[in-house]
C-alpha cells in the first residue's frame, strides 16, 4: 500500500517533505490524546459521580479532606439489592429484546440487501428508492400506528411486540446493500457454476463476506434497542414480566428529586454493559470494516 494519508494532515512541513516519523507521531498524539479525554469526559464524570456520597455529586471536588467520606458504594447497592427493584429481571429482558431485535434485523436486512444488490427483478430500484425515502420520515410518527397494530395482533406484554416493529431497519438495509454490491459478481457466478443453490450461494458466499458489516449492524441495533425507552414503556403494562432496564431505571427518577449521584449510578447500568460489549466486539467489526486501511 502506498502512502497517502500518513502525510495528508498536520504532518507536512512547509516544503511538503514528510517530517520525521517520531515528530509526526508526537504531533498526532498531541492532538489526539486531549481530544480523547474530551470525548470521554462524560463517561469519566458519570463514573466518578456515581461513586460520590450524597451531596458531593454537585461539588467540583475530587479529593476528600481528612475525615470526610466523599466516596461510597451506596448508590450501586441500591440499584442492585433493592428488594423492590428486580434489576436482574430488567437486565435480562433488555438483553433478550436487544439481541432478538438485532438478530432479526441482521437476518432480514442481509437477505434483502443481497437481493437489492445482486438480483434483477422488476420494481427493484423504485422499491429501494421508496424505502430510502422512509428514512426521512420522523421516527416518532410510527409510534401511534405501530401501537395500534400491536394491540390488534394481541402482542401487548410480549417479546414479539417489543421486538418485531423495529426490525425493518432501512439504514441497515442500505449498509448491507452497499457492501454486497461491492462484492465481485464473479464469485457468485463461480458458485452457481459449481452448482450451488441460491440458498447455498447466499450462505456460503454472501454471508461470510459480509460478516463485519453484519456485526456492525448487529451491534448498532443492539445498542439502539438496549436504550429504547418510549416504545418498551408503552408496549408493556407495568405489571408485565418483560419490563426492560431503561423503563426500570426511570422508576428511580423520583417525583421531584434530582439526586445526581444515584442518577449517575443508574446511568452506569445503561452505559457500561454497552461499553464492555464493544470493547470485546470491536475487533470483529472495526477491524473488519477498516481492514487494510492502514498505510505505511
Amino acid at each position: 500500500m502506498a502512502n497517502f494519508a500518513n502525510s495528508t494532515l498536520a504532518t507536512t512541513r512547509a516544503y511538503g517533505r514528510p517530517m520525521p516519523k517520531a515528530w509526526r507521531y508526537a504531533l498526532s498524539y498531541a492532538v489526539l490524546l486531549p481530544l480523547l479525554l474530551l470525548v470521554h469526559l462524560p463517561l469519566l464524570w458519570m463514573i466518578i459521580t456515581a461513586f460520590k456520597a450524597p451531596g458531593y455529586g454537585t461539588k467540583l471536588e475530587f479529593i476528600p479532606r481528612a475525615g470526610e467520606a466523599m466516596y461510597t458504594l451506596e448508590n450501586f447497592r441500591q440499584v442492585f439489592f433493592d428488594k423492590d427493584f428486580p434489576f436482574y429481571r430488567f437486565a435480562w429482558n433488555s438483553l433478550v429484546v436487544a439481541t432478538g431485535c438485532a438478530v432479526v434485523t441482521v437476518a432480514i436486512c442481509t437477505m434483502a440487501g443481497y437481493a437489492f444488490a445482486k438480483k434483477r427483478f422488476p420494481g427493484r430500484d423504485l422499491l429501494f428508492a421508496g424505502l430510502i425515502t422512509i428514512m426521512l420520515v420522523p421516527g416518532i410518527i410510527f409510534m401511534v400506528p405501530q401501537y395500534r397494530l400491536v394491540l390488534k395482533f394481541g402482542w401487548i406484554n410480549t417479546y414479539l411486540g417489543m421486538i418485531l416493529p423495529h426490525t425493518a431497519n432501512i439504514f441497515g438495509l442500505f449498509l448491507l446493500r452497499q457492501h454486497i454490491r461491492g462484492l465481485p459478481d464473479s464469485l457468485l457466478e463461480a458458485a452457481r457454476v459449481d452448482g450451488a443453490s441460491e440458498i447455498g450461494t447466499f450462505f456460503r458466499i454472501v454471508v461470510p463476506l459480509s460478516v463485519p458489516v453484519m456485526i456492525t449492524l448487529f451491534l448498532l441495533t443492539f445498542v439502539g434497542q438496549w436504550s429504547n425507552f418510549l416504545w418498551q414503556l408503552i408496549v408493556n403494562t407495568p405489571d408485565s414480566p418483560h419490563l426492560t432496564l431503561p423503563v426500570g431505571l426511570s422508576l428511580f427518577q423520583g417525583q421531584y428529586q434530582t439526586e445526581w449521584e444515584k442518577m449517575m449510578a443508574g446511568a452506569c447500568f445503561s452505559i457500561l454493559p454497552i461499553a464492555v460489549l464493544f470493547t470485546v466486539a470491536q475487533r470483529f467489526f472495526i477491524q473488519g470494516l477498516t481492514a487494510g486501511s492502514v498505510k505505511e
Partner: protein
Amino acid sequence: MSILTLSGNGRPHKRPLWLYYDAIWGYVFIVPFLLVAAVFLIFPIAYSFYLSFRETWLYSNWFDQFADMRYVGFRNYVDLLRNPQFWWALVATFVYALLVIPTSIAASLALALFLNTRLPGYRALRSAFFLPHVFDVFVVGIIWLLLYNPQIGPFAEFFRWLGVEWFKKHGFVDNPYTILPSIAFAMVLKGMGFGMILFLTALNNIPDSIFEAAEIDGANARQKLFYVTIPLLRPMILFMSVTGLVGVLNAFAEFYAMTKATGGVAFQFLGATVQAARVSGFYLYQLFSDAFYGHAAAMSFILLLIGLVITWVNFRILGKEA
C-alpha cells in the same frame, strides 16, 4: 455467458429464463424485510397521513381515541404554518443541522486521516474514539448538562481560567446564543467516532494507484488531500450528510435531556415567545405527548417534504460524480 446454460434447454429467449429465476429469488429474499416494512413502516405512514386530516378534541374518549378523532380538513397544516413557534422549530433545526453536520463530517474525516496511519496504538485509539457513539443519547445528554453547569461544571471553570467570565455568568445552555452550539458540540464529540469508521472504510476502498499517479504528477500532501482524497470520498460525504439530516430531523433525546425537558431558554422570534432548543423533533414529541396526533402527523409530513427537498439538493451538489 456461461450462466445462460442454467436456463436449461438452450432455446433462445427474448428474456433469458435465468433472469426470471433470478427475479423470483430476488423476491424471495426481500419478502421477510418487505413484510415487516409494509406492516410496521408503510402502513403507519399511510395511517398517519389519514390522521393528519383529523384531530383529537377535549372530549376524545381515551378508550377509543382514534375513532373519536374529528375530521378537520387541512386545519392541522394551516395551524402549524401560521404558528411562529413551528417556524422557529424549523429555523432551530436548520441552524442545528448547519452546526452539527459539516462539523461532524470534518471532524470524522480529520480523525480518520490521523488514524489511518500505523501510529502506535492506532487500533485502540480507533475503538476508543468510536465508543461514545454507542452510548444512550439521553444519558449522555444528562451528563453534559452537569458538565455545562456554570457553577460546578468543569467547562465554565476552564473558561474562567482562560479569563473568560462570560460562561460563568450566562451558562452554556442558559442563553439563546450558545445553547444550540453547546448541544451540537456535545453531539459531534459523541458521534465523530462513527463517522471516522465510515471514512476509514471508504479510504480503504480507494485504489492506491490513484495516489501513486498523483505523486508522480508531483502533488504535495495538501493537494492530494483536496484534489484526490476528498473528491474520492464524495459518496461517503453525501451519505453522511443525508444520514446526518435524518439524524437531525429525528433528534430529540439530546434536547430533552440538556434542557431538562423544557425546550430551552426563551426569547422572542417573529413577535412570539419561542424556546431556543425546541427543534422540530422536540416540537413533534410535545405534540405527540399532548395527544395532538393530527398535528403531529401533519408536522411529520411537512418535515418529510423538507427532508426530500434538502436531500435532492444534496444529491445535486455532492452526487454529481457519485
